[in-house]
């Protein structure tokens, strides 16, 4: 079974950069009674996994274990949510290791490209555009962590997602442990997040990260409306045709026909407040320019010619089949529900979305391409 505790405690709520991520990781590294080792050892002893994740709006702790072990582990979760101490030594190790990891990642063109393109498109202070700076990691201090923890976890706004072969008395178990805690008292809510844009003035960028690299990391990105937009379902189909699956136009042309890359993909970011359309690939150093040209060639085709009926049927069948395939088992199903709840979509969203996928016509896709595939709206970045 899996038990996810999801708090409104993502990076968008932090006053100082990197605090939310540090709290999320270090929440299991020491309480009043237990050291980081004792916590990890307890989790391991019961054969469980305790994963943490920090995103823009939300942060979570997910416990995965055999159902019979849950009663042994709930007291530990309660302890982590009420008595975490963020010991100085743990914070120092975290800082040192995060700095090393950052230093290493900065050597990779794809890492550098991924963070720059979002900063260009949203602005460097926007919740979806900001990224990790060395200075923020160095400046982390224990008191900031403790304050964030008390406000956004101990008293934080919490949602619980639980799935799997659940114990019969699951509600009693949860109520008797987590049910007694003082959640949902935080002042900040999702509506207090500042999503104002500050995009880069320049659309075209080339960055030299490593003179000797044999490939360039290419990213093209433009802002888009979010999942609640009436265009969303149609855009998902259009994106699939363009670069969303193995047989897509981009893959067929740039990988399977020209061999410029091992893979090229396009996708719509799944953020809560708004989205962006991204094309992403690593291509041979000397064919990066050609690769970008081919991407625009493919987008022009979608704007000027109707998608062939057979191709569209294939894409529809593929999308429907892959949705069916992702509903394999309780963990996958709860994740889909979670996504609808976090995006504030209604319970009939699934049926409506599938209806659009099944019925959309070539003319509607062409109209969407004309509306959104405007080359001048895209930021273009190549990192060598």
């Amino acid at each position: 079974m899996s038990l996810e505790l999801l708090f409104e405690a993502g990076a968008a709520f932090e006053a100082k950069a990197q605090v939310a991520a540090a709290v999320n990781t270090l929440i299991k590294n020491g309480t009043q009674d237990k050291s980081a080792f004792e916590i990890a050892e307890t989790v391991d002893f019961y054969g469980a996994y305790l994963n943490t994740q920090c995103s823009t709006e939300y942060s979570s702790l997910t416990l995965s274990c055999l159902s019979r072990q849950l009663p042994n582990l709930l007291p530990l979760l309660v302890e982590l949510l009420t008595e975490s101490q963020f010991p100085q030594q743990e914070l120092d190790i975290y800082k040192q290791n995060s700095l090393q990891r950052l230093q290493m990642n900065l050597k990779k063109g794809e890492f550098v490209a991924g963070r720059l393109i979002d900063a260009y498109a949203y602005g460097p202070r926007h919740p979806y555009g900001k990224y990790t700076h060395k200075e923020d990691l160095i400046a982390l201090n224990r008191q900031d962590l403790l304050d964030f923890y008390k406000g956004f976890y101990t008293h934080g706004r919490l949602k619980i997602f639980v799935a799997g072969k659940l114990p019969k008395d699951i509600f009693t178990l949860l109520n008797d442990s987590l049910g007694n805690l003082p959640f949902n008292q935080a002042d900040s809510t999702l509506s207090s997040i500042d999503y104002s844009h500050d995009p880069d003035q320049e659309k075209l960028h080339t960055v030299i990260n490593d003179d000797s690299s044999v490939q360039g990391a290419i990213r093209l990105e433009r802002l888009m409306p979010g999942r609640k937009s009436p265009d969303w379902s149609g855009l998902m189909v259009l994106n699939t045709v363009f670069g969303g699956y193995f047989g897509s136009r981009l893959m067929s042309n740039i990988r399977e026909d020209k061999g410029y890359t091992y893979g090229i993909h396009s996708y719509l970011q799944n953020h809560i407040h708004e989205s962006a359309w991204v094309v992403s690939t690593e291509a041979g150093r000397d064919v990066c320019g050609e690769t970008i040209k081919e991407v625009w060639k493919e987008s022009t085709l979608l704007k000027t010619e109707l998608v062939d009926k057979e191709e569209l049927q294939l894409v529809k069948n593929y999308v429907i089949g892959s949705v069916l395939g992702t509903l394999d088992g309780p963990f996958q199903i709860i994740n889909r529900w979670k996504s609808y709840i976090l995006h504030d979509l209604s319970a009939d969203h699934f049926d409506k979305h599938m209806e659009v996928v099944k019925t959309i016509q070539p003319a509607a896709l062409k109209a969407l391409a004309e509306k959104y595939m405007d080359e001048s709206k895209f930021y273009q970045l190549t990192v060598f």
Partner: protein
Amino acid sequence: MIQYTKFVLENGLRVLVHPDDTTPMAVVNIMYDAGARDEDPGKTGFAHLFEHLMFGGSINIADYDEPLQLAGGENNAYTTNDLTNYYLQLPAQNLETAFWLESDRMLSLAFSEKSLEVQRKVVSEEFKEHYINKPYGDVWHKLRELAYSTHPYRWMTIGKELKHVEDATLADVKQFFFKHYRPQNAILVVAGNVQLEEVKRLAEKWFGPIESGEPYTRDLPKEPRQTKDRYLEVSADVPIDALYMAWHMCDRLDPKYFPTDLMTDILGGSASSRLHQKLVKERQLFSGIACYHLGTLDPGLVVIDGKLVSGVTMQQAEQAVREEIKKIMDEPVSERELQAVINKTESMIAFEDMSVLNRANSLAFYELLGDASLINTELARYQSVTAADIQQVANEIFREGNCNILQYKGKISQS
């Protein structure tokens, strides 16, 4: 308990059926008993290049992906040093489409010059993306060559060098196909919302007529017992020094595999493991460290790898690892440590078995090992491991002279 039924076609193809009506999907998994270890030392990277070519059209079907996607299916494949595996899932009503596609590419590929030419380039880009254009990307090339003097595990699945892939010819491709991709070298697993009788009928209809081919006898050179520790120092443009240590271990079918697997978990499998606790948390010599084994069918490697905290020397780091190793050789692990890794293994197996795709893949793997029913006895074998068993394998693996040490040092760079 994972239920399945096995039957064998006249041409030698082994078929396993694992029905599960809780999913609307069907899974078709074909595992070929051919991996990078079966390659000619002068033509490495071939099993993997070949995996790419399997999507370039077969004798009667110009394109593999299109009809599958039209049937709402998805597929992928991977190559290891030991085997190559192809798997797909699609809505169960469309099961026959999968039989049609998979049987045609087992019958014969199209062997198109254009497909070979493009996939040579694609694999070259894959080589660059993962093994050249990435910090530490060449570690496994170096470590394998250091640890293996003779056995074909000394090269990686991507190939020893780019040139081998670039030089591949259509004649090589054909030869590889008819040597390894025959029914008697393959295992077909059909799982999900399927009926045994229907699978029997489809298997006979689509795979039955394929010729069985010549039997392939694997006769790989054995790795001689290592008697002296080997050191290799590499200097590259990386920001952080890294230490890799690798020791020879038993093969996958050896009963010692189970205590070896648990031993690596105790040393370095999680946040409460010994190496992490002692060397990352207490002594702060490493920023991260792990212990694991390669899980290969022929005798493999136990590996410890870690990134050094800056200012720590290679000698200090190696010395600290050796102190921990000495402890596990000299004293039996505690009952609680042993129980923890057994509990962890139990839940790991339970989580893996939740997905029908994983179950199909595991069934094929155990059948390749010699007997699919091993899938249901694995947990019991882990549960019967004792602290004495672990101490014994630790002493065999960590014996003097059995270690390969790769010191991967960062150049002082100006940035």
